[in-house]
């Protein structure tokens, strides 16, 4: 059914269609509307005996869904930013135990400085946790990826994180096609756990494992990710057959056929990149884009196949590994190892800095001329940076950087009269 609704509401409806039995969450911006929506759906009785457990923290939220999942319930939670970090220990436990929990991450920057807006630092901080990470381009894809996520999680007994850009998607009203309950029911069979705490057949889950077996257990968690490399395209094809639209898969190319420059990105920014590619194509530039849907597992072979014909690759990413540069770019370089293709890193949109078409056009043109620093910081105000560096050099007690820069920037007026 076509609806014009907020992304968070669309995600709540999609999760409800997947018939979760336990939902446990702690509210945090920009995830809040998702769990508010689910709480209302649970309270309405539409989900039968589904329990919505209010908890005191994100650590408790993840711990509760770990318990629920181990007891054989289909379990879901959602968080953002500091909330994801606060539950980090339990995030690793969920994947280490192989529990098929689905979690939405409404992507938001990590402090300090505190910032409620979008970037991908939170999910990236958990990229090695053993969770599958799928990034949505639009709210339609957010709906579709959640439905696929439950099936994938339960098929492989592995947790799946669906990453949705905070505010840009979670708070955007746009047209979405919300599937009918019977369609989802057909696509997503009831949860049949591979392990379960059952008094009739008692087992323990969560053994202490020493050096004699730890590597094997960890390898098998890695192996599960490798299995997902095969499972995700099949799942996406099954989804297309059942729902009549393409969503998900490992990667999705856009106008890359004869492209000399290919831009790689994750999440909602790929929409602005596609519009920019169309404009530049009309002007004669041979440029295309490649969306990474699955960041974990990282689809090395598919990326290599999609990128090996390109003269250069530009990885535009909303995170910064301090002391290194781009996380996604480093991963892409691994996919291209042995090739001479230059891979440029463009760090963009940190803490909600808008990524504009005008800036994308400029940086893609510079990349096409192979005239780009690596890493390149899109729309970074170097004057502000230089002034702060000068202040710090001038005096020992130069004060807190964030406060200094806010003072430096001052207020903006309407420039009238």
């Amino acid at each position, binding site marked *: 059914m076509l609806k*014009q609704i907020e992304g968070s509401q669309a995600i709540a409806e999609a999760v409800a269609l997947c018939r979760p039995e336990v939902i446990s969450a702690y509210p945090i*911006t920009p995830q809040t509307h998702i769990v508010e929506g689910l709480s209302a759906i649970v309270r309405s009785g539409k989900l039968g005996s589904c329990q919505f457990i209010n908890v005191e923290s994100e650590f408790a939220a993840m711990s509760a869904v770990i318990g629920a999942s181990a007891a054989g319930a289909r379990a879901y939670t959602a968080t953002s930013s500091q909330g994801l970090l606060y539950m980090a220990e339990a995030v690793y436990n969920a994947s280490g135990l192989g529990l098929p929990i689905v979690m939405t991450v409404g992507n938001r920057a990590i402090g300090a400085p505190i910032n409620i807006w979008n970037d991908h630092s939170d999910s990236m901080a958990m990229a090695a946790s053993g969770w599958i990470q799928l990034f949505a381009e639009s709210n339609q894809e957010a709906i579709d990826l959640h439905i696929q996520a439950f099936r994938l999680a339960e098929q492989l007994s592995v947790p799946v994180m669906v990453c949705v850009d905070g505010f840009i998607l979670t708070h955007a*009203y*746009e047209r979405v096609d919300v599937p009918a309950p019977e369609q989802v029911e057909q696509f997503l069979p009831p949860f049949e756990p591979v392990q379960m705490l059952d008094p009739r057949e008692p087992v323990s889950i969560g053994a202490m494992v020493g050096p004699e077996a730890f590597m094997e257990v960890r390898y098998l968690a890695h192996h599960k990710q490798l299995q997902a490399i095969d499972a995700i395209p099949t799942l996406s094809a099954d989804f297309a057959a059942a729902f009549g639209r393409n969503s998900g898969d490992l990667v999705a190319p856009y106008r890359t056929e004869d492209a000399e420059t290919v831009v790689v990105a994750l999440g909602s920014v790929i*929409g602005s990149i596609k*519009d920019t590619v169309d404009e530049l194509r009309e002007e004669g530039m041979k440029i295309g884009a490649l969306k990474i849907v699955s960041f974990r597992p990282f689809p090395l072979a598919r990326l290599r196949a999609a990128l090996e014909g390109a003269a250069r690759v530009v990885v535009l990413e909303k995170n910064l590994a301090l002391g290194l540069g781009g996380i996604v770019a480093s991963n892409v370089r691994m996919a291209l190892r042995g090739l001479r293709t230059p891979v440029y890193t463009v760090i963009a949109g940190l803490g909600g800095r*808008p990524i504009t078409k005008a800036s994308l056009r400029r940086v893609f043109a510079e990349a096409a001329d192979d005239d780009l620093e690596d890493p390149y910081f899109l729309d970074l105000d170097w004057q502000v940076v230089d002034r702060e560096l000068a202040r710090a050099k001038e005096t020992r007690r130069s004060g807190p950087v964030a406060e200094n820069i806010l003072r430096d920037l001052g207020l903006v007026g309407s420039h009238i009269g």
Partner: protein
Amino acid sequence: MFQVRIHGRGGQGVVTSAEMLSVAAFTEGRHAQAFPSFGSERMGAPVMAFCRIDEKEIRLREPVMTPDALIVQDTTLLHQVDLFSGLDTRGYLLINTRRKYSDLGLGDYVTRFPPHHLCTVAATEFALKHLGRPLPNAALLGAFSAITARVSLASVQAAIQEKFPGAVGEGNAAAAAEAYDSIRTN
């Protein structure tokens, strides 16, 4: 693509206004995208929201930098934020005020716009009359429909009543209608 930017203060329904406008466009079969630019979410803080309307899927995710229409819910923002940024001379400008542009110090500025693209509307007063609360957003959407003809008043009213069922929706729909009529009859 038609792009709208709405300025106001936290608590004035700026975000809701953009959302309702997108629903109105959707009910007319078009694609629409509405999204906020929150500051810290406090009552009274400057807030912006955006709405894009198009015949095809909208992929662009940047804020609305060059609006085709600008709605200003609160004139006290005039000297606090860069309200008119990116608004070109073919754009529409709609301000919630009982005063004239010249009284706001905008007399010279607005001469660059076609007169029928300009409108001041006493939206807060229509809201007080029909709703009993100073929430100007619905009345401004009625005025938006009147000056731009991008969505019909009926679609705006349907979107309002979808968002606010019952008496609140009816009061807001009536405020929208009076704002619409006040422009159409002038």
